[in-house]
């Protein structure tokens, strides 16, 4: 295990260095959002996009967006950020990089503006702690995690409240599938989404307020989850912190592999978003389930372990603590395979033993849900049983209608009955379940760990001709999920830039030092 962690660190560190040397348009926009700039023009283009684009076109972003922006404010070009963004959108503002003495004043001003946003995040974290103290945590683990996905926030709210009343501890509002590739965060309460609801600041606020009401009614703090992924990961993370979301899906490599987002963009955005999550007391959920849905769950079992180790390294480097690491894994082994249940137990147990203090997120079968809802219900029962026996922290509730329809009210109710039955009947098995060292479960767990170490060794020793960090070279070569993602390609590449000497970003400073002013 120690060897595995050392290798993960070796693989991750050069990528962190790379992330430190770069910034992205989304990191800069997130910084402006923390300084209080919000809203959009009549065509729904957010003001943060206008302002960042205008600065970029004029003087570039290599010194950070805050220097030229607060320089303009200091010069009296506009009275506040919003007016400046509006003027800049109309094309009437000339930006410059302030020098020497002027730069010092500008730095102080921008830092004080951004610090207000950071203090709001701090206050929201304290609010959460207060509400948990008042209403209480769920009475047992795993926490029951349910998904809502109507596309319409006003429809989501009653569904989420109903789900909480039926026993859900965590509500995840799935995002519209198009959103990860949008290079802006939509505005306002939205009622149009495909297979999910857009993540917007207003949607976050509405849902959190509704769940606060429900928490009070139920005497149990209901957590809210959304997705910090895709091209706007840093901004969404900032909004989540400001609006007191409690968990965020945030994976270090998911966007690269499954959304073809540029690797450097992803690692830069990911680091900033995780720093925000760390500050906000948000639990991240990683997406290792995806490796198993696109590859064979037995053959690819070790890729889950490798991804968990990398996610852990990147998370801790960004300041997250063990209790904030909802590392993912899933029940996706072909049920027709002999001993499939024992293998699932082995994989789940390995994750538990590798990360004893992390609230692991256990995800239900999807790939082998065939439409036979009766068989699916049984499979979900076995999934729940593995969760109970291996002490998982967060249990995403499986639906027997997976791959058939978006869950009906009754599907959700039946699924929760399934969870409750298994947890009541067998939840205590975690105390009794100590498989013998020479049995199949332990042997398999050791084998997977061994394969994971081998893969990490292979990654660390990876070299390419252009001298990229080994992990990037490995990603480019299709080491993960057989998808080749070179660092010079992928969506969002044009939003990545190298920091110049003298680059300033008060948000990163405040996040890294823990300062509040």
């Amino acid at each position, binding site marked *: 295990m120690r060897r595995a962690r050392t290798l993960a660190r070796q693989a991750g560190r050069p990528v962190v260095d790379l992330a430190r040397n770069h910034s992205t348009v989304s990191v800069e926009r997130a910084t402006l959002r923390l300084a209080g700039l919000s809203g959009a023009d009549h065509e729904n283009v957010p003001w943060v996009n206008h302002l960042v684009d205008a600065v970029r076109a004029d003087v570039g972003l290599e010194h950070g967006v805050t220097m030229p922006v607060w320089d303009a404010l200091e010069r009296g070009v506009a009275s506040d950020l919003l007016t400046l963004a509006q003027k800049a959108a109309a094309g009437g503002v000339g930006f410059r990089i302030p020098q020497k003495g002027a730069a010092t004043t500008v730095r102080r001003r921008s830092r004080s503006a951004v610090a207000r946003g950071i203090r709001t995040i701090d206050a929201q974290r304290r609010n959460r702690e207060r509400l948990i103290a008042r209403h209480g945590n769920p009475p047992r683990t795993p926490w029951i995690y349910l998904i809502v996905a109507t*596309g319409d926030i006003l429809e989501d709210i009653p569904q989420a409240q109903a789900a909480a009343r039926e026993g859900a501890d965590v509500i995840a509002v799935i995002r519209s599938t198009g959103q990860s590739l949008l290079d802006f965060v939509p505005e306002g309460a939205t009622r149009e989404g495909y297979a999910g609801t857009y993540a917007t600041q207003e949607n976050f606020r509405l849902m959190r307020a509704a769940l606060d009401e429900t928490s009070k009614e139920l005497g149990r703090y209901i957590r809210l989850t959304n997705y910090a992924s895709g091209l706007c990961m840093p901004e969404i993370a900032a909004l989540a912190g400001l609006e007191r979301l409690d968990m965020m899906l945030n994976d270090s490599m998911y966007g690269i592999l499954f*959304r073809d987002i540029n690797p450097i963009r992803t690692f830069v955005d990911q680091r900033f978003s995780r720093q925000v999550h760390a500050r906000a007391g948000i639990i991240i959920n990683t997406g290792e389930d995806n490796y198993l849905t696109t590859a064979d769950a037995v053959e690819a079992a070790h890729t889950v372990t490798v991804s968990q180790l990398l996610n852990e390294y990147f998370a801790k480097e960004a300041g997250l603590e063990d209790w904030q690491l909802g590392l993912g894994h899933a029940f996706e082994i072909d049920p027709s395979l002999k001993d499939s249940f024992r293998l699932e137990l082995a994989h789940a147990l390995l994750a538990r033993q590798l990360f004893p203090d992390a609230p692991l997120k256990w995800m239900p079968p999807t*790939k082998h849900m065939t439409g036979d809802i009766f068989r699916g219900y049984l499979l979900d029962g076995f999934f729940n049983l593995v969760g109970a026996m291996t002490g998982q922290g967060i249990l995403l509730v499986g639906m027997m209608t997976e791959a058939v329809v978006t869950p009906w009210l009754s599907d959700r109710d039946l699924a929760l009955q399934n969870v409750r039955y298994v947890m009541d009947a067998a939840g205590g098995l975690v105390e009794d379940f100590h498989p013998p060292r020479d049995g199949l479960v332990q042997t398999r767990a050791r084998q997977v760990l061994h394969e994971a170490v081998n893969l990490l060794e292979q990654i660390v020793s990876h070299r390419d001709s252009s001298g990229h960090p080994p992990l990037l070279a490995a990603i480019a070569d299709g080491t993960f999920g057989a998808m080749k993602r070179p660092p010079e390609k992928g969506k969002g590449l044009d939003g990545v830039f190298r920091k110049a000497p003298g680059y300033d970003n008060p948000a990163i400073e405040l996040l890294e030092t823990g300062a509040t002013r």
Partner: protein
Amino acid sequence: MSAATSTGRPTKADEPVTGPHGGQTLETETLPGPLVRPYGDTTGDGMVQVSFTLPLPHDKRAEAAAVRLAQAMGMDPALLVHAKAVGPDFTFFILYGSVRHLVDLREIEVAEREYELLSAKEVNQAIRKHLRRKLVVVGACIGTDAHTVGIDAILNIKGFAGEKGLEYYREMSVHNLGAQVLIPDLVESAKELKADAVLISQVVTQRDAHIHNTTAMSAAFREAFPEGQVPHLIVGGPRFEEGSAAALGVDRVFGRGTTPAEVASYLVHALVHAPERAPDHAPERARDRARSAGRGRTARGRTAGSKGKK
């Protein structure tokens, strides 16, 4: 069943014809005829189960409403076996009952697989021999759809249900563009790669996204390519209706459970052999078979049917 037949596994395609009894132990008048009804535990009993939720609090009135609904659906008698409140405003029901409806198999037309199922070796041979170059396949999930499970199952070497994907076929050059590919980018790639066939996968069906995306895609291709040079357009997904290819503007639709070998065999049929083949007789043949199967059992079928309510 229609989904299974569209994917063309011969054993499954034959099932609706022989009926749920599978043709054994049917020496008496119980042999299913052209008229069939559901089978619970006795021939002709017409038993079905349904479950649904009504937006009513659980009480006597809600239960009566559930029975009334089942009756309106043709279940008579309808037996309410389970009712459970789902929160204060909804009730979930399970009902069993006999339906009075009959299905006349003579009216059923089944589109049967119009191509021969080939092994990987045969596919490669056919391409090498007749096309004399690699067959270029471009695949993607388009629009907002991010579910690459389908396209990956067909294209990735890993494959699906124990069958290797198209990347495994030596004579195919496969380009999987992944998820959320914009239609203009797809058209561009297809041009650049000189695609013979374009496969798109659509899983998300909310607000008919799969239909809109597919028609937009086919329109874009027809606009971008001169007539007769449009790549063969194939769409796959669990919710496409069989026979909707023309309406969608594509050449072929594949449904749930389609395997890579079926797609490969179809591609050979459509793109390698098509020019030298007479127009397709397969659908007619299927219809004939369904008819003759029906005819052979007409008499006994009627007997079973006449036991019913009508």
